[in-house]
């Protein structure tokens, strides 16, 4: 087993564990923090796959920006969840069991999720995936830059419209009541 493989497995384990904690932790802020760890691990995996540029983007956008957004939203939203009151409480093992079978954390979600993973695993097992192609991977940053402003310049511009829409949307939805409306009613 090479060092790269070990690194991959370790990162993968961290990523999945963090994701598990994201789903199961009772306090939503904890979940958000676990999410950061999961994203960082994903970034690490990108590095093992020689995607340095994406590594950086993943850290900046996901682990940075999106996390900040999420935490921001949590702070602005449900105070009860911060204290862990949003989910059914209990103690010890009993709490865990209860949570697994409570109204929404039912068996059906688990069954669907496990079913999904199992099917995908069998699919991947049954598919003869190619090995690593010969040749050293080129540094990807330059190549991505060229592609982005060459072949993919139209999608690049399109993405900017998507961001514009998101901005307009976020503003229009969260503009405080009484801001614009009141102004409109003023003679």
């Amino acid at each position, binding site marked *: 087993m090479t060092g790269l493989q070990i690194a991959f497995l370790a990162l993968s384990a961290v990523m999945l564990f963090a994701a598990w904690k994201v789903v199961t932790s009772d306090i939503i802020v904890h979940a958000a923090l676990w999410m950061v760890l*999961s994203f960082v691990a994903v970034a690490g995996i990108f590095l093992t*796959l020689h995607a340095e540029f994406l590594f950086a983007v993943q850290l900046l956008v996901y682990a940075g920006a999106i996390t900040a957004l999420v935490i921001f939203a949590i702070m602005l939203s*449900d105070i009860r969840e911060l204290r862990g009151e949003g989910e059914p409480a209990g103690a010890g093992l009993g709490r865990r069991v209860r949570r697994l079978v409570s109204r929404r954390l039912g068996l059906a979600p688990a069954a669907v999720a496990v079913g*999904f993973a199992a099917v995908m695993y069998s699919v991947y097992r049954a598919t003869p*995936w190619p090995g690593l*192609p010969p040749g050293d991977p080129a540094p990807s940053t330059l190549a991505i830059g060229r592609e982005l402003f060459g072949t993919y310049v139209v999608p690049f511009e399109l993405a900017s419209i998507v961001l514009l829409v998101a901005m307009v949307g*976020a503003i229009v939805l969260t503009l405080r009541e009484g801001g614009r409306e009141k102004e409109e009613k003023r003679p």
Partner: protein
Amino acid sequence: MIPLSWVLVSAALLFGLGLYGALARTNAVRILIAIELMLNAVNLNLVGFSRYLSPHDVTGQVFALFVITVAAAEAAVGLAIILMIVRQRDVSDVDRINLLKW
């Protein structure tokens, strides 16, 4: 070298976890986080394939880049929607948002 199937399987597991999170938790912010996990799984797929198709092919990485961009936009809109609801109804649990049914 890392076998491609390792990448794919861990991506599938991550997707599955995200799926479980989306189904099992009722808080809208958590569902959003779970969706982000799923998108990360997709990115793992894309980057992994990109690496294994050809040493020079970066299409998958470019695709992943766009997925990240869109995910950020989506998260912004999603959080704005959640915020809007929380402000006016003081709930963020989706199982309490069910005026519309039948």
